[in-house]
């Protein structure tokens, strides 16, 4: 875990090597963000179904129904966690290309911007997407599109990169001839 080691640099009264217990521990652990979790720890045991009548057994708790937190809240928290692990350790989205036999998955966090993403996709699918222009989109055989949070299919490149990261649900590389002119 990423912990800033406050203890090592802390000035304190007392002989070197002596340790002081609880208050320091509290302040350090309060720095730990819930984002910084090793995903392997939570992996398969967190259920993200919304059926609140049966939630899957959590990793650490041995006891059914303890602590006494209502199913609804438990599911929300587990859902939140899996959202955060997404942003913590990568945003994986499916990528399909028209005519390709199977889909791929890319981690959008690996790319700093659209240019890098396009390079990555072109390499992966051995296609040419070319350069984006605000007025004309992509003047090549293929146009990259994505499905946003509302379920609409959008042309990649219109919105700022950070906004794209939060709204992109999946990618589809369409044949340009299929792209409907707006």
């Amino acid at each position, binding site marked *: 875990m990423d912990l800033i080691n406050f203890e090592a640099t802390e000035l304190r009264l007392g002989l070197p090597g002596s340790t002081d217990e609880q208050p320091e*521990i*509290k302040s350090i*652990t*309060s720095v*730990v963000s*819930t984002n910084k*979790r090793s995903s392997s*720890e*939570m992996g398969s045991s967190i259920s993200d179904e*919304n*059926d*609140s*009548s*049966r*939630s899957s057994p*959590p*990793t*650490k*708790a041995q*006891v*059914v*129904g*303890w*602590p*006494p*937190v*209502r*199913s*609804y*809240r*438990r599911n*929300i*928290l587990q859902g*939140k*966690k899996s959202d955060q692990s997404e942003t913590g350790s990568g945003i994986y989205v499916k990528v399909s290309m028209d005519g390709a036999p199977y889909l791929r998955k890319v981690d959008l966090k690996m790319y700093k911007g659209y240019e890098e993403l396009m390079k990555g996709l072109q390499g992966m699918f051995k296609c040419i997407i070319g350069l984006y222009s605000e007025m004309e989109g992509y003047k090549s055989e293929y146009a990259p599109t994505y499905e946003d949070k509302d379920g609409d299919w959008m042309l990649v490149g219109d919105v*700022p990169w*950070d*906004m794209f990261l*939060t*709204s992109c649900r999946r990618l589809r590389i369409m044949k340009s001839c299929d792209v409907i002119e707006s």
Partner: protein
Amino acid sequence: MDPNPNPKKPKAIKSCPFPDEVLERVLSLIDSHHDRSSVSLVCKNWYNAERWTRRHVFIGNCYSVSPQIVAARFPRIRSVTLKGKPRFSDFNLVPEDWGADVQSWLTVFSTVYPFLEELRLKRMVVTDQSLEFLALNFCGFKALSLLSCDGFSTDGLKAIATHCKNLRELDIQENGIDDLGGHWLSCFPESLTSLEILNFASLNSEVSFDALEKLVSRCKSLRVLKVNRNISLDQLQKLLLRCPQLTELGTGSFMQELISGPVTELKNMFSNCKNLVTLSGLWDATPLYLPVVYPACDSLTFLNLSYATLRSIELANLLSHCKNLRRLWLIDTVGDKGLEAVGSCCPLLEELRVFPADPFDQEIFLGVTESGFMSVSRGCPKLRYVLYFCRQMTNAAVATIARNCPDFTHFRLCIMNPGQPDYLTKEPMDEAFGAIVKTCTKLQRLAISGLLTDRTFEYIGKYAKNLETLSVAFAGSSDLGMEYVLKGCPKLRKLEIRDCPFGNAALLSGLTKYESMRSLWMSACNVTMDACRVLAKERPRLNVEVMRDEDGSDDSQAHKVYVYRTVVGPRKDAPPFVLTL
């Protein structure tokens, strides 16, 4: 009846000194069902006047009475509150199909109370068919509230929205609902303008914003609106434009990459809401947008941040504007530092609930400790209701808290690791709860946790004379523990126990007490079937239900026992795994 009548009183007046109409008029002003119960016991006249004037009936356990009996006694009911499953069903301790189906009640009500207006259900099974039945059979139906219920889907809500022409309230909270989509909201007809309360915060599917905006625009009396997480800040702004008169608002997501207008406009929306007293939602709130609510904070009395994972700094900044808060719900991500801010900013606070962000995973986040709780108690002497989830506590801290806040009526402390002692002294937490019951004489509800011996129960039995509800888990050393409580707490109504070493002697020590209580729950204790049979035989006015374990092993042990008083005998809808003795 009185052998020595007051000599000044006129002779032979046995009947009521004023006409029924006057008595009824007076009694119709009484709302509290406790008071009405008292009224009904005075004499036959008053009993009758009371039953004719009662508009609202509260049934704390749907199996304690039948709909027919209710209907026979109260002919003019307009509003019903009904509770079903034992509370531990919220934590998956009660199997599905246990019961508490509302349909049998609705069937009777449709003939006896065709003008029923309000139905409030808690822990009941409600099917879509029942919701449709409700919508179609009660033409004046106005208010539906479902809390912690299950068995229905959003299709049921469609029926309500479509057919209830005078709907005033739709309040859907934390249910086991099958969310099939948000289309139900679009089922409200254009002609529906009566909505005052709409709460769909706990539903996951997106509703049509267009339909919602139109609904909000035409319902001029709307005062409570709690939307779900899918409603964005932009959309919220548009809604607030339409209903600045709201008294309670539950926002959607408070995170948006880019909002379409300037932040000041959103902030202005909040300052326009001059009547806001309750604020909730604030999903995903960050320091970026949280300040837009500041203009509304001064008038807030209830702030529900239990779905907003705020840090201490964010909370502190927010609370500095909320000096009139009476009720505050938080997630423990705010830490002890956040609670310090509570103590310093909210001197009028009466209720605090701190929920765990990570109830199961101890290593990631410590949450809040005894220190945070103490900070709050120092700054908020008017605290009466606390629900506190933590991972460490000390006896000394709780004693301090009790001294600072002697007015506790509800004290629910959950130390999340079962059987954990005082982390400093390693002693049991007996003295902590001892301090609470000794100091807080008005205590009505208590939930205990941590390492506890029989001494805790001795304290409870000796001091907690106003205690009505007690929740116990992983506590006690012997039967004596439970016996102390049953003997010592005269007002006890609900006792729920899990994973404690209480056995048959303990169970049977309450033989004469259970009829004065609503219910007893005991699971994973040391009770045998034989003892349950004895209880059932001795007390025919109790239902003694034993739930069999799924694996069917060890048939002599009673793994889950639910005992409740009833005037209608064993229930007829018990599933195969429930044995009524």
